């Protein structure tokens, strides 16, 4: 009896995690570069109810009667599919078309990665610095912060699809200035550690960052200037998932009710 109570409780917990994940997806539906997450579940341990069992025709079955003890969350993994492009008026907005990530220098100087290309140009000590809206410097393909000459007019800086920064010369033709935006890929992006502000950090599971600029034979991502990548959350999918999660939660609570009633009846046996 108590078995079914705890089994149902594990089911309710799992569905709570499911709703948490869905709610976070819906909350981030307008977050630039957000990747939808999904919770997946696995069955828990199995226990022997009875060792000898017979099938319908009376033959002995090779396995014993087993009962499962519930469910657990197997993973909450992000789905790294391409989000849609949203046009932006800012020339320091970038979107990645492909598998790459931008690199930024995080709080303690640790490199973090992001798909959110909504950057700003700020007046740094060495010149104009490209940074995120939190002020973290964006890194170039050599891993150094992207700093432009203070004399440059920031609105004239352009970026070609390979990520090279250009500045117009006297005859107004864009000329590469020798800096290109750093784009990195991971063997297993699902393994990246998620931190706040749309930033990811490298882990053992994700593998080391692969620099697109100096790795041969890699499918290079394309950079689009004045565009931002929208989230890849699909509202219809999330809604269907929400319905399933809520109903499954309800079902498990019904199972707890049934167990409770049966316990009560067992209790009333002794008057």
């Amino acid at each position, binding site marked *: 009896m108590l078995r079914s109570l705890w089994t149902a409780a594990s089911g309710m917990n799992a569905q709570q995690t499911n709703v948490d994940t869905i709610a976070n997806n819906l909350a981030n539906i307008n977050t630039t570069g957000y990747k939808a997450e999904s919770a997946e579940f696995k069955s*828990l341990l199995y226990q022997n109810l009875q060792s000898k069992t017979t099938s319908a025709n009376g033959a002995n079955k090779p396995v014993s009667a087993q009962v499962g003890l519930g469910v657990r969350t197997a993973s909450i993994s992000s789905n790294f599919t391409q989000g849609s492009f949203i046009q932006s008026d800012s020339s320091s907005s970038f979107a990645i078309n492909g598998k790459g990530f931008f690199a930024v220098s995080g709080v303690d100087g640790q490199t973090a990665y992001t798909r959110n290309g909504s950057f700003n140009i700020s007046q740094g000590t060495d010149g104009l610095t490209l940074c995120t809206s939190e002020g973290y410097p964006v890194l170039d393909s050599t891993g150094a912060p992207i700093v432009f000459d203070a004399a440059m007019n920031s609105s004239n800086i352009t970026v070609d699809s390979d990520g090279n920064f250009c500045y117009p010369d006297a005859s107004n033709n864009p000329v590469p200035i020798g800096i290109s935006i750093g784009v990195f890929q991971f063997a297993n992006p699902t393994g990246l550690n998620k931190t706040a502000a749309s930033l990811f950090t490298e882990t053992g599971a994700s593998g080391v960052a692969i620099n697109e600029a100096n790795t041969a034979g890699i499918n290079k991502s394309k950079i689009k200037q004045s565009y931002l990548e929208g989230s890849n959350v699909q509202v219809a999918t999330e809604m269907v998932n929400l319905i399933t999660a809520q109903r499954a939660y309800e*079902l498990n609570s019904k199972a707890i009710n049934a167990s409770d009633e049966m316990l009560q*009846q067992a209790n009333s046996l002794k008057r």
Partner: protein
Amino acid sequence: MVKGLYTAYTGLINQQNRLDVVTNNLANATTTGYKKEGTTSQSFDSLMAIKINDPTSANINQNIGPVSLGVKIGENYRDYSQGSFKNTSGPYDFALSGNGLFSVSFTNKAGEESIMYTRDGSFQMAQDGSLVTKDGDPVLGQDGPIVLPTDATISTDETGEIYADGQYIDKFAITDFEDNNYLEQYGENMYKAVDGATKKDATATVMQGYLEMSNVNVVSEMVQMITISRAFESNQKVMTSIDETLQKAVTLGQL
């Protein structure tokens, strides 16, 4: 009299066990690749009841007939029918359509390696390019774990052949069994083959970008749950009425 008390008791235990199984189905209603389980009940072997020492029939023993003194679990079975598909468009999500199971190399705590089978195709790529389950167990191909190039686009065809940028890499080891009764539940969505299991060619086709959901039918589980709690109640009523009768018998001698 007291015989009936124990018969009702086996009924109560049996309904509890059945509820445990139903609850586990409900808890796993959204588990990837879960196959619903069911229980059958079996009566105890019937015994011949004989009336003895009855003076009304001149002390001649008379047959009453066979009685069965309780109920136990007949078997637990799994329903391997197809679950519905959920579109995830994840490159490492695979669903099986038809009969068959993915093979996974599983290492237990003692370091012993064995092959487990699963319908759960939510895999991921490890940093060395090997295809692993969400718990990190390598997924098996034709000859050992599947290792994919990390920078290529992975696609599969229906037969389970894996291509990286159009180039053949490996093929999923999809196995089916002559008799699914020889599969034991391990937990973690995995099945273990027990002695006597014979493999056969799988007819399943592989679909990339989909996951197979559980095949738990919520309506039938709810109906089951109602039946179980009512059957439990009936057994409880039998028990209380036997108790009342016993009480009458006990108080008979008191004036």
